[in-house]
Structure formats: structure tokens, C-alpha cells
């Protein structure tokens, strides 16, 4: 343990926690799409950088960073609605519909930013008022993002346990039954995809504000990271109600980042930053296989 502790400096550790919390929004969004609605949605690879791009451009234009983040959420919701439209209205296979939106968003994001990368150096962000207080910066960021994550998780939890949220869960679990109960399943898909991608875009907006830049390529693999978080959470907590599942998403996202950070910073393994995607794939595979092995061992 001590060796690992040394391998990971305090700044690197809290940096991983912060990134994990930023991507917790992605994890919760992915949970809504994949688990609640049973809609395999790859739009997130586009809506994450969309959120970052919209926020960055607006902040540079002098817009209040909170408002910029809110607009980013609206943009993300719109992206989700486009995917839902392609699927529900035009009957395109859900996975394919989301790939189409994702591809289109790459161009949209370039248009929004006007260039592949926008820096937010010296610009005021949501976090600016909290820097320079008694706490050091690398504590402030995860704390700030953590509070927002907590608020989002509580809101989504409350929603999923309401009448409206139950209708959404039924849509994903048994659409035929949901319709027989008077649930307009098409509308639920629109709503669910909008909420999911709004959360992912908020993650993108916070990514831009905590890291100080928006990059058009930052969306690549977002879906895998989100799924990794969801699956790690499920592996650790199992299926025990909505709140536990949401908490699992958040914790899964943080643990994923710490695991990646550990893998990359331990010289013994000889890994470098470019091995990230391979490590991710390996981690997700382990998370998927582990429960099966455990069950096999018990039987």
C-alpha cells in the first residue's frame, strides 16, 4: 500500500478524483440511457465536447460561467433529442441513430469553436470565486464538482422514484406494458435522451472549466469511460435500488480514474499515456468478467 501511496502523489490523486467526479455526470447520463431506457446511446461522444465547446465559447464572449454551463446543458439536450428523433420518428436503429448524431456533432463542435481547441486561460469560471480561499486549488476543484454531482444524483434519484420517472423506467423495462398503462413511450425516449445528454454536456462544461480548455477530440471514448464507471459501480454494489446504483456510477467513475492514474504512474508496469485506451478496455473487461467468475466460484 505504501508503495502505491508513493507512486501516486497527492496532487495526482486529487486530480484523478476530480476527473472522476467530472465524468460522474457522464456515468449518470449513460446509466439513464443504457440501464433505465435500455437505449445504447453513443451520442455522448459528441455531446461531451459539445458541452465543453459551448461553455468555452460563451465564457470567452463574456457570458456568466453558470449561464454558460446551463446553455451547454440545453445544447446537450438538443443533441439527445436529435438521436431520439432519428430513432423514434424515422425508425433508425437506436445505436446507429446515436452514431449519426455523434459524427455530425464533431462538425458542429468545430463550427461552435471555430477551431479545434479553445483555451480558457485567465477567464472567469464557475470555480474562480472559490480559488484563493483557505483551501488549496487541488482540493477546491473536486470539492466543487463533488457538490454539483451530489445535487445531480439527488435530483435524478428523486425523478426516477416519482410517477414520471417510473414511467421512464417502465419504458425501458417493458415498453408494451408501459403503453398499456398509458405511458407514451416515444415521449419517454425523447425526455430520457434529453436528460441523459444534458448531464453529459454538463460534464463537458465542467471539464472545460476545471481544465481550462475545450478540445474537439476530448469526446473520443467518452462512452467507454461512462460505461466503465457504470459497470464498475454495478460490480461493486450489485442491483439494490436506484440511489445505490447512482452512487455506484459516481464511485465507479472515481475508482476508474484512480485505477488509470495508478496504472500509468507505476513505473513497474512500464505504461505510458498512449496506453490509456488499452488500460480502459482491460479494466472494463475485468469489471465485466469478475462478477461471472465470482458466481462461478460460488456454484
Amino acid at each position, binding site marked *: 500500500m505504501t508503495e502505491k501511496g508513493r507512486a501516486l502523489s497527492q496532487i495526482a490523486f486529487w486530480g484523478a478524483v476530480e476527473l472522476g467526479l467530472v465524468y460522474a455526470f457522464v456515468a449518470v447520463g449513460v446509466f439513464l440511457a443504457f440501464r433505465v431506457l435500455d437505449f445504447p446511446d453513443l451520442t455522448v461522444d459528441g455531446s461531451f465536447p459539445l458541452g465543453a465547446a459551448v461553455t468555452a465559447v460563451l465564457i470567452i464572449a463574456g457570458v456568466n460561467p453558470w449561464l454558460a454551463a446551463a446553455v451547454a446543458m440545453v445544447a446537450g439536450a438538443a443533441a439527445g433529442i436529435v438521436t431520439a428523433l432519428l430513432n423514434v420518428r424515422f425508425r433508425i436503429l437506436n445505436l446507429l441513430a446515436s452514431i449519426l448524431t455523434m459524427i455530425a456533432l464533431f462538425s458542429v463542435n468545430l463550427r461552435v469553436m471555430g477551431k479545434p481547441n479553445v483555451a480558457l486561460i485567465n477567464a472567469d469560471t464557475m470555480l474562480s470565486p472559490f480559488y484563493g480561499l483557505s483551501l488549496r486549488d487541488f482540493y477546491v476543484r473536486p470539492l466543487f464538482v463533488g457538490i454539483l454531482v451530489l445535487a445531480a444524483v439527488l435530483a435524478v434519484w*428523486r425523478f426516477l422514484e*416519482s*410517477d414520471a*420517472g417510473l414511467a421512464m423506467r417502465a419504458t425501458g423495462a*417493458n415498453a408494451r406494458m408501459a*403503453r*398499456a*398503462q*398509458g405511458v407514451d413511450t416515444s415521449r419517454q425516449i425523447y425526455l430520457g435522451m434529453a436528460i441523459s445528454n444534458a448531464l453529459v454536456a454538463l460534464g463537458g462544461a465542467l471539464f472545460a472549466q476545471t481544465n481550462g480548455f475545450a478540445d474537439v477530440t476530448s469526446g473520443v471514448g467518452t462512452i467507454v469511460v461512462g460505461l466503465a464507471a457504470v459497470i464498475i459501480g454495478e460490480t461493486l454494489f450489485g442491483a439494490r435500488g436506484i440511489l445505490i446504483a447512482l452512487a455506484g456510477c459516481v464511485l465507479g467513475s472515481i475508482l476508474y480514474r484512480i485505477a488509470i492514474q495508478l496504472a500509468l504512474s507505476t513505473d513497474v508496469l512500464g505504461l505510458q499515456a498512449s496506453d490509456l485506451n488499452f488500460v480502459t478496455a482491460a479494466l472494463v473487461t475485468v469489471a465485466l468478467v469478475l462478477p461471472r467468475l465470482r458466481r462461478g466460484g460460488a456454484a
Partner: protein
Amino acid sequence: MISVKNIKVVFGKGTPLQKQALNGVTLTIEEGSFVTVIGSNGAGKSTLLGVLAGDVLPSEGEVTIGHTDVTRKGTPARAGLVARVFQDPLAGSCGALSIEENLALAARRGESRGLTPALGAKRREHFRARIAELNLGLENRLGDRMDLLSGGQRQAVSLVMATLAGSEVLLLDEHTAALDPGMAEFVMNLTQKIVTERKLTTMMVTHSMRQALDYGHRTIMLHGGEIVLDVAGDSRKTLEVEDLIAMFRRIRGQTLDDDALLIG
């Protein structure tokens, strides 16, 4: 009250597999009446039920439920008028949700759904009381996932779900066909009790001629998308399963003869 007028349904129109599933069915079921529907496979029973539920929109004709013309309304839009129990115990409820969540879902059938917590203390109490009436001990398992229940238990809960919110008509789609004989009897007795107590206008599709004659006020036989038998009152009371089988054979024989003519 249910009223269907000259309903025609064609599946796969314009293809080699074109099938006239319903061919001008006209039927009125009075308020509070319990009608049983029989017929061989492909006779149009399920299609007729689908037309009432909204799953199948007819190419011709009119459907009225209560006093509302629902001919062009899809399933969700008319769910407030129609309660339904499916043949497949897995189809009528969400296995991934808990028993009480399924009940909460059904309690707001056909109504708007807001941000009110789905399982408030008051609702829970109400659900517990309704489930306790089943005498299956499920009232202590309301938090269990629905897919932990047996098929019969799920159908029993589905029946309760069908009556949590008001409706003009109850549709039963061979809802005991997938159950073992003991459980099928339990669910049928429960059906009888609920329908009588609540004076529900009910249409039950069944494969069992015994069931068709033992329950309800009126029996309809479908064949080739048309109503070929419609008995109620005294003439139905004297009817035996053997009589029905004889009629079934006669109708089937006729079609066989027709086929023979066609081939000849």
C-alpha cells in the same frame, strides 16, 4: 359499453401473405356484461382484442368504448378506458421493478404522471390492503422484484393492477393459459370475484370451452375473422362443451369442403 361496427383488419396488405384477420365484425357489449370469446388459432380472437386495446388499428369500421370514439387512438391514448391482463405473465408487468412500483405504475393508468414520489406512505398502505386481499402473502413482499414471483402470482397481481385505476372495460387475453391447472383455477376465481364486485364490462378470450361457458353472461365464437356464434341467456345455459365442439367441427368441416372444392 363496447361497440365495434363493421371492423376490418388486413395484415400484410398487398403481399403474398395477405391475411384478412377480421372481416366485418360488428358487436355490442352492454355495460357490466361479461363476454367470453372462443375460436381456433387464427380465428381473429387476439386481433379483436388488439383492436379494442389499440394495438391494432382497423382499416375500416368504428370502435367505441364507453362513449368515446377510439377508432384512431393508439394504446397509450386510450389506456384510461382499457384495463388489460396479458396471456404471458411476463408481458403485463415489469420484472425489473418491484411489486409496489408495478402497482404505482398501474394506479396512474391513463392519468398524467408528475414528480410526486411514486410510493408515498398513503399509496403504500392502499397497495398493501389490495394485495392482502389475494391471500397469497405477497403483502409482506411489496419491495421484492416482480420477476421473483411465479407466473400465477404475477397474473394475480396483474389482475389487481388492472383494477387500481378506473376503466370502462377489462380485457383478458387467455390470461390463465400459461398457468398450471391449480393456479389457473385460482386466477379464474379471482377474476370472477373482481368482475362481479366491480361490475366490470369484461371481454375474456380463452382457449378453454369449459371456461367460456362457465364464466360470464355471453359467449362468442370467431372463425375466419367473423362471428359465427353468439349465445347468451337461456340458450347458453343449456349449451354443453360437446355442443360447442360439434359446432366447431361443423364450421371447420365446411372450410375443409371449401378447400376441397378449390383444389378440385
